[in-house]
């Protein structure tokens, strides 16, 4: 480096401190303003859910109720709609979908990554094509088929379009490809069957990808509205978003205290899970990329 003065040194220390301070204030100003925009609905949801109707309808902006009305709002919400049942339905379909997705995708991904069999390339091309087809495209023929089979309004009808995740196959194949062949060959020489190799050797090594995919799958199906709206009309089977919709319709949007209480109960499970396993969620949803 030459002795020529750098631009930064030309400024007096006091000046540069001031500049630093202003730029910091600007950065945090933007971030805080954005954070308020992000958090406002959550804060307002929680605040409204503990306000009495009189305070809600007064239209005042108050971040804390004068009279705590949380017990009444939450018990009314629980009484008017089977909210815990909605949440349970959400758990059932998320677990069911994920279990089948993994059972189907893992062996297929292993076969695509490590085994030679006729039609392998064709299958892979079809998987890639499948990535371009949103679920709303095959929805209508699937609906007609399910209606003819008489299985609308069942958990099965809610889960079946998602049993195959082409995305899971694609993701796991990428992971399995980097698994060392030597270990697989050694396991074969030890007399392990391919079945055991998949589930006891290769699968545990892909744990990060599987965890990431599981988070992605659970978030997507807990929040999905389109398909349940089509196949479910029985409120007892509704997953959280559809349940919320039924509840909002029944309440005709007037009782905001109970509505926000219901929204809080149905949003809570995923948000709490997110706050606990923050890194897993962020990695899971971003690694899998396609929403």
């Amino acid at each position, binding site marked *: 480096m030459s002795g020529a003065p750098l631009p930064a040194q030309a400024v007096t220390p006091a000046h540069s401190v001031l500049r630093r301070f202003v730029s910091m204030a600007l950065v945090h100003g933007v971030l805080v303003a954005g954070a308020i925009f992000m958090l406002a609905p959550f804060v307002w949801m929680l605040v409204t859910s503990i306000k009495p109707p009189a305070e809600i309808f007064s239209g005042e902006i108050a971040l804390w109720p004068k009279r705590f009305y949380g017990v009444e709002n939450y018990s009314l919400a629980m009484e008017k709609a089977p909210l815990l049942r909605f949440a349970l339905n959400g758990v059932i379909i998320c677990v069911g979908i994920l279990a089948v997705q993994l059972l189907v995708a893992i062996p297929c991904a292993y076969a695509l990554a490590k*085994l030679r069999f006729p*039609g392998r390339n064709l*299958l892979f091309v*079809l998987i890639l094509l499948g990535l371009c087809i949103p679920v709303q495209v095959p929805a209508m023929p699937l609906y007609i088929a399910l209606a003819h089979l008489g299985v609308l309004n069942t958990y099965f009808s809610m889960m079946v379009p998602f049993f195959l995740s082409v995305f899971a196959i694609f993701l796991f194949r990428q992971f399995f490809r980097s698994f060392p062949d030597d270990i697989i060959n050694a396991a074969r020489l030890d007399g392990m069957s391919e079945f055991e190799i998949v589930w006891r050797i290769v699968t545990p090594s892909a744990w990060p990808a599987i965890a990431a995919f599981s988070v992605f799958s659970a978030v997507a199906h807990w929040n999905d509205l389109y398909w349940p*709206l089509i196949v479910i009309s029985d409120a007892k089977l509704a997953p959280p978003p559809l349940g919320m*919709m039924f509840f909002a319709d029944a309440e005709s*949007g007037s009782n905001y205290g109970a509505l926000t209480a219901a929204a809080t109960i149905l949003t809570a499970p995923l*948000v709490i*899970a997110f706050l606990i396993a923050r890194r897993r969620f*962020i990695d899971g949803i971003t690694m899998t990329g396609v929403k």
Partner: protein
Amino acid sequence: MTLVLPSPARVAPAAGRRLLLERFTGLGFALPALALLVLTILAPLAVLVVLSATNYEFGAVDMDWVGLGNFQKALADPIIRRSLLNTLIYVAIVVPGGVLGGLLIAVLVHRRGKMRSVYEVIYFLPVTSTLIAMATVWQFLLHPSLGPINGLIKWLGFAPVAFLSEPTTALATLAVIGVWQILGFNMILFLAGLTAIPRDLYEAADIDGCSGGIDRFLTITWPLLGPTTMFVVITTMITAFKIFDTVAVMTRGGPVGSTEVLLYNIYLEGFQYFHTGYAAALTFIFLAVILLFSAAQTFSLDKKVHY
């Protein structure tokens, strides 16, 4: 397919048997996925092609061939044209808003030290929350007389705005909610991209006299983020084209059709009015629009991105 057998004759049977076993195992492992692929994607697509050329209505006993009639009808239908236009307007707001917003926040949050994870959680929260539940909350936030947003507007001395029942503002309001939902997701993707940029480059830029934040952003950060930006733009666009939830819950296409979007119209035609054949044609138009725009984006951005 060529089989290369090892030359010594006595090894051949064992190797051949292993190869045969591998082929059967491979097929067996792929079979459940293949069966589901046929049953839940390929066969429905084939059925959809056939349906789109008929006037079939769900529950009807007979149907007639109409050829490309459904497509001609759809392209001439003012409702479909409007919903296509509305979808494009929605996408045109959510993509720049969600991508540039996510980029801005990511650049500001990056290397923020202790506060970084706090901001990360806050901005990511809408991604994990149930949009339908939050849509109900937004509806209340935006309420003309009870909502705090209009409370604030009135306090500032302006007339209240009926965001969701005014045809001029309804779609833009939904787009803002769309940005709110996706911004944190894009921020995380950009943060991953930023982490991959080596620090030395910034030091080198400092030495070269390129010390201002904006200079550094334009000469280093932006070009090196190219591949990330391309990915973010395309995922945001696909998500935006699939807008349905907020329309179904908050506006149901209204007021006066100002928030009718493609997927909502497909839902209405296919599952409410049971115009199955017509809805099948609309589904293909929807798919074509998504694929066309993704391909166009990939091409145009690919030329500018230097890996």
